[in-house]
């Protein structure tokens, strides 16, 4: 029986790797994608282009402008002299932020102790707009603190002292790179499994497989193991890139991370084979792969937190294996978690994997065309 199974696995690997283009597709892109996406996926703004429209001649406004020009994230691309210049610049996305200082700014600040500045932000991407506004606010707050200290004004009775745990500099790259590892692993399992059964069905070789002495469970194992092995090898490679190249700290237990990876591969391979055994043509398999993969990524909490979703959608995310794997990745990488904290993430993936594999093997026999 073992020999039969080994022969089958050998055949599956041949089917997967004998075509040089297929080999390329499997090995090279995930590495490149991790490198490219790792740099692309960040919510930290590095280059906020802004325009200055300063109608004030006073020293105070010069100080404020110096604070903006000195901030590394801000980059002044235009200096305006008329109101009418603002709209065209923002419309064509030449600037994200316009800082407008009115003619009485310095005078008001000296005489009344307070003055206002106007900030115009392009809200087409509201998240970027919010982050840019936060940056602006931080600069103005800094200016205010110095002004209060320099002019002997009364300090506020209480102040906030904020610290961030697990990611002290709030680097969003540390949050996204573990997420990308999860997404790429999912893509790989889909690549290996989603089209395999459909291809054999289309070519008629699946019927031949079914009349061999192999039992459906063995056929399933033969189809599942290559995805599992390829996923493990590739998962290891991208974990190495994440820690060695991107220097994301890996604080927690490596065995717990691998246990998570194994269970995630199990559920991903299960879902892929289920799709594949439901599909009659490869076109249907491809559609199924996308109908699973796209929601799985978007509802996993990769970019938008699950806590922000409506309750119904939050319930749907419970059947998304990526959701659990992302928690494991982030907790192990950044929070130093081990098995004890992660149990709640392990068993749902085992259930999803088990159920989908059983369904797939049942469909092997019962969906014949």
């Amino acid at each position, binding site marked *: 029986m073992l020999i039969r199974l080994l022969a089958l696995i050998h055949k599956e690997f041949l089917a997967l790797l004998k075509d040089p283009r297929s080999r390329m597709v499997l090995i090279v892109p995930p590495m490149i994608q991790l490198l*490219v996406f790792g740099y692309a996926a960040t919510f930290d703004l590095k280059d906020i282009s802004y325009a200055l429209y300063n109608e004030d001649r006073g020293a105070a406004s010069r100080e404020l402008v110096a604070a903006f020009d000195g901030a590394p994230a801000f980059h002044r691309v235009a200096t305006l002299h008329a109101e009418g210049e603002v709209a065209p610049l*923002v419309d*064509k996305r030449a600037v994200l932020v316009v800082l407008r200082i009115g003619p009485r700014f310095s005078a008001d600040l000296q005489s009344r102790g*307070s003055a*206002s500045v106007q900030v115009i932000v392009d809200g087409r991407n509201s998240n970027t707009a919010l982050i840019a506004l936060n940056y602006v606010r931080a600069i103005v707050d800094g200016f205010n603190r110095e002004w209060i200290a320099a002019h002997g004004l009364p300090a506020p009775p*209480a102040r906030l002292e904020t610290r961030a745990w697990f990611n002290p500099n709030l680097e969003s790259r540390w949050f996204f790179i573990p997420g990308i590892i999860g997404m790429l692993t999912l893509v790989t399992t889909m690549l290996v499994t989603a089209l395999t059964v459909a291809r054999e069905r289309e070519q008629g070789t699946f019927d031949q497989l079914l009349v061999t002495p192999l039992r459906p469970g063995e056929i399933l194992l033969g189809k599942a193991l290559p995805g599992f092995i390829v996923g493990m090898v590739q998962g290891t490679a991208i974990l190495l890139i994440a820690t060695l190249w991107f220097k994301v700290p890996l604080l927690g237990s490596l065995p717990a991370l691998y246990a998570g990876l194994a269970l995630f591969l199990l559920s991903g391979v299960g879902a892929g084979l289920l799709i594949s055994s439901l599909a009659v043509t490869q076109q249907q398999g491809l559609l199924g792969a996308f109908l699973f993969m796209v929601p799985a990524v*978007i509802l996993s909490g990769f970019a*938008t937190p699950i806590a922000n*979703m409506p309750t119904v959608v939050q319930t749907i995310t419970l059947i998304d294996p990526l959701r659990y794997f992302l928690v494991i990745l982030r907790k192990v990488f950044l929070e130093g978690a081990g098995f004890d904290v992660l149990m709640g993430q392990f068993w749902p993936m085992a259930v999803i994997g088990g159920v989908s594999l059983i369904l797939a093997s049942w469909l092997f026999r019962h969906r014949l065309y």
Partner: protein
Amino acid sequence: MSATQKPSLRGGGLMRLKGLVRKEFLQIVRDPSSIAIAFVMPIFLLVLFGYGVSLDADHVPVALVAEAPSPDTADFFASLESSHYFAPLHARTLAAAEQALREGRVNAIVHLRANFAEQLRRSDGAPIQVIVNGVDANTARLTQGYIEGAWGNWLARRTASQGQELATPVQLEQRVWFNSELRSRNYLVPGLVAIIMTLIGTLLTALVMAREWERGTLEALLVTPASMTEILLGKIIAYFVLGTGGMLLTVGLAVGLFEVPLRGAFWLLWACASLFLLAALGMGLAISAVARNQFVAGQVAIIGTFLPAFLLSGFIFDIDSMPTVVQGITHVIVARYFVSIVQTLFLAGDVWSVVLPNAFALLLMAAIFLGITWRKSRKRLE
């Protein structure tokens, strides 16, 4: 087909094309997965994401710890409790709150020391300790911002009730253009339209050419008077019609169901979407023609479409903040140009300086992809 035959067959050319389009439609109808790609997938994805995806956090769970509860601490906490941004949770000790943060039950801790009330009355003020879970840096920043907001309100209220004035030398007056309430759905839904259209366009055609090569039906077609250009044209027309249906559906849902304002002209959106669809279909055909094998074409489609469009198109991540090399790579992502166009047309209106260059880029991409398809298919013939 020789040059001398061409003029006499011109009328026949149109008829042949009609026949080819009819053949494609018959194939589409017989395998319902194409129809599912064009109509079911957009509805399913847009409804799921339109409701599911949001970057606006509210009811953030926060642990409140006062080592020595007093009217002052209660007064400060009241400013957090009254805000819909927070779901406060009172903890007795800092250790209990830290445990809750570790277990993920709260996202932040606000901690007031035993001498808070006393220090409030000193000239250097009382420190308020805030700890946020920094793993999700974006949510951490938002939470921090909300706490700062509550703190600012409390300060203003407290100083006003004591008859003093709070010194805030420079006040910010913020104007957010195009999306004044900063509703993240208003920018995510148009972006999703672009992502979903990329998937529709590419998936519809990614296997089409490869399937015909694999089954040998392309050779069968080629012995008929139909030329390769006509065969390709037949496919493009059929899938273009199907894709246009899907596009109208997604735009209709975005405006009708999600109430995203469409400030630009509809015809312009239609024109740009058609160009984009042509580029996306072209990409699918090119994958198909290069791979010549459904399995590999399917694999390339899985790798090459969704994640790049999702991460590199400017849909969620700001392209200007990426390193130069990665910014260069984003230029080969078709969705990038369309995301820029839809965000502008939906929220800002007909800004020609944004639409024209991007539309031109789409046209160029469509030409390149269709050119690749044509060359690759012809080569095989010779």
